[in-house]
């Protein structure tokens, strides 16, 4: 009689402890050394570097593969230079404009609005103010590229989110939006 009671209590404890899985901790794994990467995972901690993280900035004077330095400085003079002298390395093709439009929808339209009137969702909700209508700004493809790269006033730099080709595609599309607005 007593033994069976002990058994029942033991089973109940196991069931209760199993059912208490919390959602804030990861679950058990069958073979953790097959699940966890031996190499460093993206953004993981690492003791190999002084600041303790795997993600490191490029060493000074080096560039990432497929990435070219932009030598126009982030100054008013640089912006003027970009506006007047930068040459678009892409052709105004349908494909470039379509990619530009798609990227514009992801990175720009939330503030600038789908048509570039400065009426994106964040502006409508008064989270972000002072976004101009492209029509009211004296911009060229070169200065748009410069602004995407460095940001301007409240706008931050988007160089980390878009690569060189994508920045030019967006710049082409913004220029087209401006042309449509000033028509």
């Amino acid at each position, binding site marked *: *009689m007593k033994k*069976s009671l002990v058994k029942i209590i033991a089973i109940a404890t196991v*069931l209760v402890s*199993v059912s208490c899985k919390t*959602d*804030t*901790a*990861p*679950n*058990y*794994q*069958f073979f953790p050394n*097959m*699940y*966890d*990467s*031996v190499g460093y*995972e*993206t*953004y993981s*901690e690492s003791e190999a570097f002084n*600041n*303790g*993280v795997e993600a490191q900035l490029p060493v000074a004077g080096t560039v990432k593969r497929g990435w070219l330095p932009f030598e126009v400085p982030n100054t*008013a003079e640089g912006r003027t230079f970009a506006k007047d002298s930068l040459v678009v390395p892409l052709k105004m093709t349908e494909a470039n404009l379509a990619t530009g439009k798609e990227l514009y*929808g*992801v*990175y720009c339209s*939330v503030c600038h609005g789908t048509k570039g009137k*400065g009426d994106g*969702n*964040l*502006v409508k*909700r*008064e*989270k*972000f*103010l*002072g*976004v*101009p*209508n492209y029509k*009211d700004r004296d911009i060229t493809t070169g200065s748009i590229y410069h602004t995407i790269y460095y*940001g301007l*006033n*409240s*706008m*931050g*730099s*988007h160089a*980390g*989110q*878009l*690569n060189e080709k994508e920045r030019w595609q967006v710049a082409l599309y913004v220029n087209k939006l401006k042309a449509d607005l000033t028509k």
Partner: protein
Amino acid sequence: MKKVKHRNSTSKVLGFCLAFLLAFSTSIFAQGDPVAGKSLFNSNCAACHKLDKDMTGPALRGVAERLEKDWLFEWIRNSSKMIKAGDPYAVEIFEKYNKTAMTAFPQLSDADLENILAYTSEEKKAEVVPVAQAGAGDASADSGMSTDLVLGLLALILLVLAVMLFMVTKTLNNLAKQAGVQAEETDSVWQKFVKNQFLVLVAVIAFMLFAGYHAFGFLMQVGVDQGYQPVQPIHFSHKIHAGDNGIDCKYCHSSARVSKTSGIPSLNVCMNCHKNISEVAATTADGEYTKEFYDGEIQKLYDAVGWDGTKYTGESSPVKWVRVHNLPDFAYFNHSQHVTVAGVACQKCHGPVEEMEILEQHAPLTMGWCVNCHRETNVKVEGNEYYAKIHDELKKKYGVDQLTIAQMGGLECGKCHY
């Protein structure tokens, strides 16, 4: 006679109205209309100026009281001319704000400028905290309390009953002993059960089925983290960012377009917006998440990235985000292949992230789950001239109009395990 009196009163009322309107309208022309000023301010000035806080340019509340109107008008329309002319205050302001030239606004009329100045001269309003929402939060907390209370009470009653039963048995036993009553020696229920072989067999089978079912269920959920909802070092609400504000997933997770991982956005992406947004609107607060709580979380971001409100201090520290979705190392998954090439919506695997205040793992991320989707989803082959021939041959081979991923080889082991 009555009519005359009536007419008289009407004209009096009309006259009064006219006088009132005139007085009111002149006051508009003299001081500017703050409502019109607000929209002008928001579209022209707010990129660099806030009312109560220095930004690219100085805070502007009460600027009309600080400076002469003519000076302000000239400055707004062409500040660089004033700086060149050597106006002492103009030069001082230019130097103070990192020599950033203010955009000239020659297109703004006198009336526009009056309106803007009227808006900047308004008193600061105390922000209205939505009372209804706070009340709703309290109510839900109350109901949670009361269920706990009821359950506790029930447990207590059960315990008392058990104790009473135990004591009653004990007392009755004692009484029986004192009275010298001998209980009949019969088999207990347990002994009867053990003697009945059929019942034992049935019970053993039932127990094995029960145990097998639960053991299988337990083993199948090992390594599955569906519903995993870790506490992050900075409380980030996907509901506010992706849901309410409608920011595209790929704005922050930009590497999902082009690389294997979807990426944790680096803090400069946060700062693209949060350089300007240092506190949430009073209407963002919702129940247990108060405005103070959210503002504190933004402050944590500033501490991590080293932003003191106007400039970067250079003292930054990495944020230890906790990874939610984690595939085992022996399974290969590439985001760009799914996001850019296939055009799968993020929500297909990650669930309604735009409604999650705290992110959780929506999908089980098991192999069965992957394979199921690969069996059911058709590949978009239209407009892909380069592979048109092989697509046609595959369609002929399987006798279908639409190819699924599985038919394109999406179930081959080596696609994901190598």
